[in-house]
């Protein structure tokens, strides 16, 4: 159907009306009668023994209802928080799994570790009472420096993880790769740090819970990206509340970027304590708590080597990475630097041999888990940085070296040496289009013009591939995932003809209420204002896996399409009965069932009405009602790809890097709503540039104090840091899902850091700077320039 609101139309977002008028309903907005308020006492130490906790004085504070400590959880036999993905190390043994108590019992392991929960009649009273709790700590030395986390003599974070090693994992055959390196005409080597990031969703994490003594039912409102998964974890592993007695609601949620996938201590405590307190409990994180306790992202130390033959063909890639897990293993922490990272190291290239070794370390820092892109930005940064470095060393054009090594368009489906099979792709037209939009041929003239103004101008490429649309259940199951990764949909027509669509995906900024409605409108002809997309409530939506890994449309949208097929099939039978026609002759077009070659027709709404008021109905053959469920398990990941080109100017006197132009050409397969896709790409680029130029989580290496713990010291990218982005698209439909779609949520953040840093290096190369680490802050760049000038003078 072609329509102003169907597939491919730039439909304004339905949800924006409430978001822009302040009428969204977030967890903190919940009016709960007789509510109490929780405050969490956090560890001020990175590593310490808890010798005693004295709550006597705090309990006497006005307004205090209850105070809980880790010991209360031990007494109540509450389970620990879990890591849901078992990664087997290179010997086939499962990763080390140190316990992760919901609240610390005898040891705190990072600044922000939860020590006590104070429940009071108001937030301020709870906070005041927390001041009166006396914790006697015996401070222990902390393990903070990731690059040295495995060194002898470094403080041990967990007795269960000797040497601070969680796993030593590998993919590929090392000997084959070494043999290829031995024959190489050229080897490019690099050491890089993928800087640690703090997610900073606009809405901090929040939870509220209520226990109904009469029924024994718990309701937990949480800022979750996946309420069903949160319920499953709390029920099956942590609290033991039967799944049918726990309802989890994730209402409007203000951004997640991965950080709200996981099951956290605070929401667990709020839920657990609700029945003990006997009144509802509310908690909303302060921004300071978000900095300390939201799972952080990235944080790798990597050595990589690329072997090339004399024509510039890639022969082999070798990568050694140390990945930071933080103090405890968060819900999916183990999978991020392995199956979501090393499997992407082929990039867009035919590199025949790849070996990657990843060692995961525990440190006395906040847990690290998936953050926008999760592993794939780290992989893209390695591949795209080393390719550009190789091009510079070989004095080749970086686009030419990429083109020379692209997987040929005729080679799909393409089996990479690192497990994934790319389903589709067509890379050369993408880079061509990006170079055209970015006016690559005109770059040298722009560089000369900038030089005349005293500025160093540079250009950088990043040609990314990602695997998203998580995920084929059988594949992830074989790799150790504890869950399947299909998605669900339910299409429920009401007798009056309007429709509610329940999805297991969750929208926290992605615009599902619009995109999914466009699918329904396009397929079933129902007007947009007659469609309600329902998500985020385990009581009203079918079990689903939630939203992360750019999966909502490719997997959740596909489930919706399957359900529409069932609606149409049932409607055809009803319409055939009403039209006294053979069902084989009934077609469905523009929302109406017709008998081909006649003027007989039954609008879908009439078939729906007949299904609910079945006075004239094929009862022998059909059940009443128009309510269909579908589950969709993808056959493969989807593989969006693209090229970004960034152009920067650097002021050598101040070290300030300015992004002058940023181009992104993507292949997301078919596009449902181009406006929403542009928004996703823009946001992703901004986060990626944020990582490259501004953001860096810094812990004091001696004490483990988070010194970039507020917006005074942690720089978020802002609108005035950016030019208008130039976007383009090439479409290679995904061959294995019904919409032909790939994912677009993470692409911008995956590709941008390498594009920016390649541009920075390109700008600084003429003055002899070899390497700048992210974030390329003015200080960092200026010091690199000074270092190069000193080296040149010596």
């Amino acid at each position, binding site marked *: 159907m072609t329509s102003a609101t169907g597939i491919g139309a730039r439909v304004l977002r339905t949800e924006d009306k409430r978001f822009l008028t302040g009428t969204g309903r977030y967890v903190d907005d919940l009016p709960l009668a007789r509510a109490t308020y929780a405050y969490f006492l956090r560890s001020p130490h990175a590593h310490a023994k808890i010798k005693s906790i004295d709550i006597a004085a705090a309990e006497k504070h006005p307004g205090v209802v209850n105070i809980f400590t880790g010991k209360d959880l031990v007494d109540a036999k509450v389970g620990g928080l879990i890591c849901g993905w078992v990664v087997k190390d290179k010997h086939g043994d499962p990763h080390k799994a140190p316990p992760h108590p919901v609240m610390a019992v005898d040891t705190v392991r990072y600044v922000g570790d939860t020590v006590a929960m104070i429940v009071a009649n108001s937030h301020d009273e709870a906070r005041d009472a*927390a001041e009166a709790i006396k914790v006697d700590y015996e401070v222990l030395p902390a393990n903070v420096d990731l690059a040295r986390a495995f060194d002898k003599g470094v403080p041990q974070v967990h007795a269960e993880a000797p040497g601070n090693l969680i796993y030593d994992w590998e993919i590929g055959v090392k000997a084959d790769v070494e043999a290829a390196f031995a024959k190489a005409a050229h080897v490019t080597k690099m050491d890089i740090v993928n800087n640690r990031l703090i997610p900073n969703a606009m809405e901090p994490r929040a939870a509220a819970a209520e226990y109904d003594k009469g029924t024994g039912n718990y309701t937990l409102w949480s800022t979750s990206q996946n309420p069903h998964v949160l319920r499953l974890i709390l029920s099956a592993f942590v609290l033991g509340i039967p799944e049918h007695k726990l309802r989890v609601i994730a209402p409007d949620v203000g951004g997640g970027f991965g950080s709200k996938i996981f099951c956290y201590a605070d929401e667990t405590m709020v839920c657990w304590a609700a029945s003990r307190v006997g009144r509802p409990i509310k908690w909303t994180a302060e921004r300071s708590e978000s900095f300390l306790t939201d799972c952080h992202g990235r944080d790798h130390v990597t050595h990589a080597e690329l072997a090339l033959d004399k024509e510039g063909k890639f022969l082999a890639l070798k990568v050694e990475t140390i990945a930071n897990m933080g103090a405890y293993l968060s819900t999916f922490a183990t999978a991020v630097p392995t199956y979501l990272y090393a499997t992407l190291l082929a990039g867009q290239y035919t590199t025949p041999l790849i070996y990657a070794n990843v060692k995961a370390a525990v440190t006395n820092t906040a847990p690290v888990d998936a953050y926008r892109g999760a592993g794939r930005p780290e992989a893209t940064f390695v591949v795209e940085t080393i390719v550009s470095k190789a091009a510079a060393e070989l004095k080749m054009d970086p686009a030419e070296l990429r083109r020379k090594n692209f997987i040929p368009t005729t080679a799909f489906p393409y089996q990479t040496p690192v497990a994934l099979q790319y389903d589709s792709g067509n890379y050369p037209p993408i880079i061509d289009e990006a170079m055209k939009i970015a006016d690559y041929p005109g770059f040298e003239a722009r560089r000369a013009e900038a030089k005349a103004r005293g500025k160093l101008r540079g250009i950088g490429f990043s040609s990314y591939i990602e695997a998203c649309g998580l995920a084929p259940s059988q594949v992830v199951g074989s790799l150790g995932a504890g869950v399947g990764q299909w998605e669900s949909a339910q299409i429920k027509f009401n007798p009056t003809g309007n429709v509610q669509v329940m999805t297991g995906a969750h929208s926290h900024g992605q615009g599902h209420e619009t995109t999914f409605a466009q699918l329904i409108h396009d397929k079933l002809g129902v007007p947009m204002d007659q469609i309600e997309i329902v998500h985020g409530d385990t009581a009203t939506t079918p079990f689903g896996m939630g939203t992360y890994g750019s999966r909502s449309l490719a997997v959740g949208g596909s489930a919706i399409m399957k359900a529409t097929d069932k609606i149409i099939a049932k409607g055809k039978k009803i319409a055939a009965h009403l039209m006294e026609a053979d069902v084989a002759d009934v077609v469905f077009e523009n929302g109406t069932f017709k008998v081909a070659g006649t003027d007989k027709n039954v609008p879908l709404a009439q078939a729906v009405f007949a299904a609910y008021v079945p006075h004239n109905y094929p009862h022998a053959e059909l059940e009443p009602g128009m309510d269909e469920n579908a589950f969709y398990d993808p056959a493969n990941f989807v593989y969006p790809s693209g090229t970004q080109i960034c152009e920067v100017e650097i002021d050598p006197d101040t070290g300030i890097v300015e992004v002058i132009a940023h181009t992104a050409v993507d292949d997301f397969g078919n596009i449902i709503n181009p406006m929403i896709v542009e928004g996703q790409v823009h946001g992703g680029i901004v986060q990626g540039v944020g990582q490259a130029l501004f953001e860096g989580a810094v812990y*004091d290496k001696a004490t483990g104090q988070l010194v970039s713990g507020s917006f*005074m010291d942690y720089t978020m990218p802002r609108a005035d840091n950016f030019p208008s982005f130039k976007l383009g698209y090439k479409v290679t439909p995904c061959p294995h899902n019904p919409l032909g779609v790939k994912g677009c949520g993470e692409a911008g953040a995956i590709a941008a850091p390498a594009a920016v840093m390649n541009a920075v290096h390109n700008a600084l190369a003429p003055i002899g700077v070899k390497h700048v680490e992210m974030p390329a802050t003015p200080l960092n760049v200026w010091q690199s320039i000074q270092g190069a000038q000193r080296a040149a003078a010596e």
Partner: protein
Amino acid sequence: MEIKGEYRIAASREKVFAALNDQAVLQACIPGCESLEMLSPTEMTAKVRLRIGPVSAAFSGKVTLSDIDPPNGYKITGEGQGGVAGFAKGGAVVALTADGDDTILKYDVDAQVGGKIAQVGARLIAGTAKKLADQFFGKFAERVGAPPPVAAA
């Protein structure tokens, strides 16, 4: 972080050292000190209200005197819990040398903070600690010496 400073005090070493052990003098000179109680000649409990950048907190904790070597100097260390603001701990090695009728007081401060103070005020701690040390020894020199000395730090 470490901070060093030096003051000239118009008083004898014996007088200066006695003042360094005088609870009333210490209480008057410690910035933001709300109470200071002697438990023993070398141990005190203190309540101190401090502002570091955007964080204001009341610290309660212990002050200990050690390496006591009259009249040459001692080490004063403190450790305070600021509740949800975190903790602060630090020490100063104080050395006294005679210079004519005056005493030269040299101090060498080492301070550490944790929790919210470190989280939001890390950049400000060096400056704040320097300021606090100057306030303490400035006031101390003023109170013990006469006429008011000129800071030589």
